[in-house]
């Protein structure tokens, strides 16, 4: 079923934010909506959005490639995105990341064998005073975890592996 049909009300709510003659503006919120389906954006969904907004598939695909929070392939159920930028690194973020890799048994950019966690290094998340920190992105949304330790993080990982839960 097309996005517009399945999420009729949500799509209309998004479109109402922008002048009718500028409905292309809805492409970013619609991409988030599409991503909430499977955790990544399928080519069919991109085509749906292109049809709905009367733009080309390339126009939509170009955004998925440009913006880092959109994903076009299936990876871990939860993306653990650790800030390793300068201010966080001055507070131990690189060492934190190394330990996480060792504990999870994966390298940066990889996914745990059970498909739960994809570990990523990202740039500044505006939480420099609360490093080490990361955000979890899933199909539901995003949430911050600040002033973290490796132990606290591994507890969270265990919870996500066992039960899973909504993020955001």
């Amino acid at each position, binding site marked *: 079923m097309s996005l517009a049909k399945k999420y009729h009300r949500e799509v209309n709510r998004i479109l109402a*934010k922008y002048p009718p003659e500028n409905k292309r503006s809805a492409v970013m919120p619609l991409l988030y909506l599409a991503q909430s389906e499977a955790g990544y954006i399928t080519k069919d969904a991109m085509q749906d959005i292109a049809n709905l907004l009367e733009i080309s598939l390339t126009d939509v695909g170009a955004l998925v490639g440009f913006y880092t929070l959109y994903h076009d392939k299936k990876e871990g159920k939860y993306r653990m995105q650790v800030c390793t930028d300068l201010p966080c690194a001055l507070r131990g973020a690189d060492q934190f990341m190394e330990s996480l890799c060792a504990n999870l048994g994966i390298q940066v950019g990889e996914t745990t064998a059970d498909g739960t966690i994809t570990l990523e290094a990202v*740039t500044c998340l505006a939480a420099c005073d609360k490093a080490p920190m990361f955000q979890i992105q899933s199909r539901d949304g995003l949430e911050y975890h600040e002033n973290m330790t490796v132990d606290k993080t591994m507890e969270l990982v265990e919870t996500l592996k066992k039960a899973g839960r909504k993020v955001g």
Partner: protein
Amino acid sequence: MPTILLRHRDIPDLHKLDVYKQNGGLEAFKKAVTQMKPNEVTDLVKNSGLRGRGGAGFPTGMKWSFIDQKIWPHYVVANADESEPGTFKDREIMANNPFQFLEGVAIASYAVSAKAAYVYLRGEFWQIASFLDEKIAELEEAGYLGDRLFGTDTSLHIYTHLGAGAYICGEETAMLESIEGKRGQPRIRPPFPAVYGLYGKPTVVNNVETLTNLPMILAKGSDWYKTLGTPDSAGVKIFSLSGRVRKPDNYELPFGTTFRQLIYEHGGGVQEGRPVKAIMPAGASSSFIVVDDKVLDTPMDYASVRTLGADLGSASIIVIDDTVSIDWIINKTIHFFKHESCGKCTPCREGTYWMSNIVERLEHEHPGPASVELLLNVARQMQNKCLCPLGEFSTMAVVTGIERFPQDFKKAVEPGNEHVPDDFKKVEGLNL
């Protein structure tokens, strides 16, 4: 001193509409709409000396006065993209004092006669965007947003728009492109947004912190605001203090507070009591300030920081102690800018790529002094040639790092290790 922007630290539950109203909230907006003309609001803000808090420090009232009065409709865009490494103030404001920020958006919109305003939040502020959506709905419900406000002809709707992970969208024309549903790549200016902005219409783009000042300026007057800060930099500023300090946090202080007061009185001093070696006052986009006693006693305002060979920018003060080597820092900043370069203009796209290549080799291969020269050369070649400030910013730490801390690049060029990588030799015009 009572807080002006981080008032939630003094007033519990300020994020609740009734509490905000009990503390004088929304009176300023109501007064503007019912008792003042838009240009009177602009004049008041001009007289207050308020300057943009996003980094450029441009006078806010003057920015509003540039808006084209022949082309309609007008738009206001609140820049909530906060992505500069070391900056985390707007997030605290929006998450804790949302109504004062939204009232600021409303006042700015009235001043430029905009009937629609967009709050552009970086995608990572997902939860804050939902929170603001709730607050906007509450304001609509209570009659502070919507059509024919307070029985006048004034209408205003505020919408949130989420980015999706791109530092460049903090640049105002890239932000407008992004709201229009395109890749966030800067436009060539002029025309400026005041003439050709969102959807090609006159648009004012203001930072969250700038806007959050407005309700208090309207309520207490421009003369009151000027009693705070310095003649050059009126009012208060949120200093985001990070790096090797004991108490990293946001500190709302008057302009003119010294680095020493911020770092030692408020920030608890440096970790393990070590000396401050360098300060980056504007996040990763900073020039390095070489720190001595005189520097620590310098007042933090736009003009004084410039005398130290740096800009105050958004006042994201990153403190670096003597355990940290500057070559490691520029590796981090170059990596950041290479990742965030939008790819539109060649000097930035290629320059950040080459700087990243060279600095990686400096760290891992000790390729010889020619490489440090080459890095400096690439950075200088980029300067004044990029389409937007991002490319320029990427060179600041590189050039000032090498010039002001040459000793930190010595280990990268150990004697007897003068190997020049083969692919550098292939670059035409390079004389190595």
